[in-house]
């Protein structure tokens, strides 16, 4: 029995045990839950290296699991973020109902993601893909309100994607006689042109749904915002990366091999860019932190898609680095939102304000992740953004870079909205009782914030594994030796040296901090946010001056034409049309036995009339 088997068994058994141990003791349940996430994570990193394979024969199909550098990289995201989110979930779920249900699906999701990453054959890939879908679906509808639309939308889109993938898989099996990914890849250049186009398209449909690519993204904001925040952090941070993982494989190993691949990459890159722009615009409009972050996730995934779709090495690196970073900062941000939800009971910017002094550690985590999200140096987000722009510019995507840049600049608006809405602004009496979140929730956030900081200066830590992963996929490596240091560079030879920049920034910051604080901070006294110069008056205590409704109204007015068309509406229109069609079909069954008899005769007569054609 290979270690991979053991890992899966622990996941599976842990999920079941966790579910049922809740009937005995809540503490036991928490312990089981943590153990069944952390133990496999430890085992994986300690004992499973590239080249190890495990097999299982099911129904005449041999399922093969193994790990290479590329999947190892994603395992890092899944298990790292998964562990953090698991610890966080202990605090987040405390005192909530249906803990067992949540934990069960949480563990299954992580197992499914690991399964996807470890799958070497397409069938186990598909199986785990579907497990991932339904387990995440079950968590999505955990809260239970408004689920009719959200959960089903998510599941339907996922199912359409997954079924497209299933079709591709069986067609591949038909053509090659094997379910192995490697045989698909090896046979790919020999396929007919239509297959060469359709098989990647079908795969990309599946991956595009999970990665929330543009016309397929409509489920994402709702699903992300509806799931419990402890889960959304891996939902958005890790689960969506499975789409990216698949996309990279399809793009690198298949599409790059055919001349038509150029158009593929262009289309996907543009879809990614548009996704980023649309996601950002809608994120700015949201008044609820969950929704805002959800749309922001869509936008960030757009960058990642663009990066990997460009197909140059820098682009790939950028996309994958952004993927890692996105897991970190979006995971943290969702955790922050969850902490605030836990402490205040709401995540609406119009309700919560001025928590900075009540939840300082949460604020620090949020601040750092926002800086990373916005791509501001010296945090990690910048590195990814920089490489993305450089790869776009150096590969002649001039207009795309503008779209991306627009989206990335506009992202400042929602970044600020997030920070301001929760932490800044007037401190209202309503929230005077709020305390900092428990340590079990804060610590994971802070750990991840520190990681962002480290990666901002030493991106080589993560770029090296990305690079070796890409080499495993068959990428030719052109600037391998440089990833050791904290230098990022493009193919034109331009580079940014991050280390001195960090020192300078810290130096300047510390200098002016001291300058401002010197003899100052002690003697000045803190005054409440009511003590302000509002046209010369001091507002009363019960006067709510918080500015949060219509926060980005001017900007929204400027971009109003672009937001008038919602893709959602078209989908709803299609759905309504189909429903009425189905209603019509249903009326065939009139309820009159005689009519049914007539149907029988009609059937016979029709078949008899066409018997010469049919037989």
């Amino acid at each position, binding site marked *: 029995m290979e270690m991979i088997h053991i890992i899966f068994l622990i996941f599976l058994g842990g999920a079941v045990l966790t579910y049922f141990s809740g009937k005995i003791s809540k503490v036991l349940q928490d312990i089981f839950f943590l153990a069944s996430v952390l133990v496999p994570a430890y085992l994986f990193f300690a004992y499973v290296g590239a080249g190890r394979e495990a097999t299982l024969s099911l129904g005449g199909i041999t399922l093969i699991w193994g790990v290479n550098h590329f999947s190892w990289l994603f395992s890092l995201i899944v298990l790292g973020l998964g562990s953090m989110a698991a610890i966080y979930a202990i605090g987040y779920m405390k005192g909530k109902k249906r803990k067992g249900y949540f934990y069960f699906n949480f563990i299954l999701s992580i197992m499914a993601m690991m399964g996807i990453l470890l799958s070497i054959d397409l069938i186990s890939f598909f199986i785990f893909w579907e497990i991932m879908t339904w387990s995440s679906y079950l968590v999505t509808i955990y809260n239970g309100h408004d689920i009719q639309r959200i959960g089903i939308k998510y599941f339907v889109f996922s199912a359409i994607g997954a079924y497209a993938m299933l079709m591709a898989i069986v067609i591949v099996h038909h053509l090659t006689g094997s379910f192995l990914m490697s045989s698909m890849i090896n046979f790919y250049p020999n396929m007919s042109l239509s297959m060469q186009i359709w098989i990647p398209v079908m795969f990309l449909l599946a991956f595009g749904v999970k990665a929330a690519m543009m016309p397929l993204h409509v489920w994402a904001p709702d699903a992300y915002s509806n799931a419990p925040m402890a889960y959304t952090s891996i939902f958005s941070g890790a689960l969506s990366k499975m789409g990216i993982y698949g996309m990279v494989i399809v793009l690198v190993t298949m599409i790059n091999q055919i001349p038509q691949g150029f158009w593929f990459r262009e289309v996907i890159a543009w879809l990614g860019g548009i996704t980023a722009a649309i996601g950002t615009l809608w994120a700015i409009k949201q008044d609820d932190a969950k929704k805002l972050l959800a749309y922001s996730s869509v936008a960030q995934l757009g960058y990642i898609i663009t990066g990997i779709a460009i197909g140059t090495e820098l682009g790939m690196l950028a996309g994958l680095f952004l993927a890692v970073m996105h897991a970190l900062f979006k995971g943290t941000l969702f955790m922050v939102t969850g902490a605030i939800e836990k402490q205040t009971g709401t995540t609406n910017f119009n309700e919560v304000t001025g928590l900075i002094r009540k939840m300082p550690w949460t604020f620090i985590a949020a601040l750092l992740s926002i800086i990373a999200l916005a791509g501001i140096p010296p945090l990690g987000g910048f590195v990814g953004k920089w490489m993305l722009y450089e790869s776009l510019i150096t590969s002649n995507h001039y207009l795309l870079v503008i779209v991306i840049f627009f989206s990335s600049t506009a992202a400042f608006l929602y970044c600020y909205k997030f920070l301001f809405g929760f932490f800044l602004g007037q401190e209202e009496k309503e929230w005077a009782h709020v305390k900092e979140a428990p340590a079990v929730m804060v610590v994971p956030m802070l750990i991840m914030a520190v990681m962002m900081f480290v990666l901002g200066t030493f991106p080589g830590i993560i770029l090296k594994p990305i690079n070796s992963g890409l080499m495993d996929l068959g990428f030719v490596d052109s600037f391998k030796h440089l990833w050791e240091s904290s230098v990022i560079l493009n193919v034109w030879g331009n580079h940014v040296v991050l280390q001195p920049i960090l020192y300078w920034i810290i130096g300047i910051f510390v200098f002016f901090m001291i300058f401002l604080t010197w003899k100052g901070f002690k003697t000045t006294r803190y005054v409440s946010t009511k003590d302000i110069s509002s046209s010369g008056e001091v507002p009363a205590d019960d006067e709510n001056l918080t500015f949060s409704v219509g926060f980005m109204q001017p900007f929204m007015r400027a971009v109003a034409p672009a937001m008038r068309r919602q893709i959602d509406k078209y989908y709803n229109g299609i759905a309504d049309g189909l429903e009425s069609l189905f209603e019509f079909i249903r009326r065939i069954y009139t309820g009159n036995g005689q009519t049914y008899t*007539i149907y029988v*005769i*009609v059937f*016979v*007569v029709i078949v*008899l*009339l066409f018997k010469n054609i049919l037989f």
Partner: protein
Amino acid sequence: MKKVLVILLLATLGYYVAGTYFDIGFGQPHFIKGLLPVKDIYLAQTVKSLKVSNAVTSIVVNFRGFDTLGEVTVLFLAVTALGSILYKKMNVLGERSVLFSSSSIVTSGSKLLFPAIILLGFYVFIHGHLSPGGGFQGGVIIASGFLLMLLAYENYSVSHTALSVVESLAGITFAGVGLLGFMHGGTFLQNFLPTGVLNHLFSGGIIPIIYIAVGFKVGAELTGVIYTVLHEKGESNG
């Protein structure tokens, strides 16, 4: 509109069905040449090995006896289903429906005819293997005798339990004889009795036994059906 449509449909259907059967031909050999139809085997074997003079009986009871077992089961099930469908709570029969009461001529005439009818029924199914007729026909005749009595007498009653017992016993006989054949000869419904001489009453092995059982069963079942349906008045709310 609907009627025209139905007529058109049925006309088309009729065209094809009738055409097919016209192709087959009436009253002349229609089997494909060179094939040996089973009926020739049946006709040969019914005399040779079964010693049954009524070929239809030998087919019904022996060659295709399994069909008959199924057929009996269908009847049995029909009675069961009927009882189930028309079952009423409290286990009381509904009032009998009487359109008009019978005159004394009818009642005494029926009383007179009843034994004769029953006797005829018995005769028909006992001689099923010798002459036209058989268990089904005889059973129906018996049932018609009971029908006559039921029509003639408003308060004529048949014991439900007795019917049920007869029914069951007859069915068990059929299946049991089949199983005996199974134990004796290795195949279900196989003949294990001496076949006797053609055209004698005691001939044909198990065939008469089965046909007698069928006769009792059909008679009991049809009587049961008639009896149940006759007592279906009142209680409009179900």
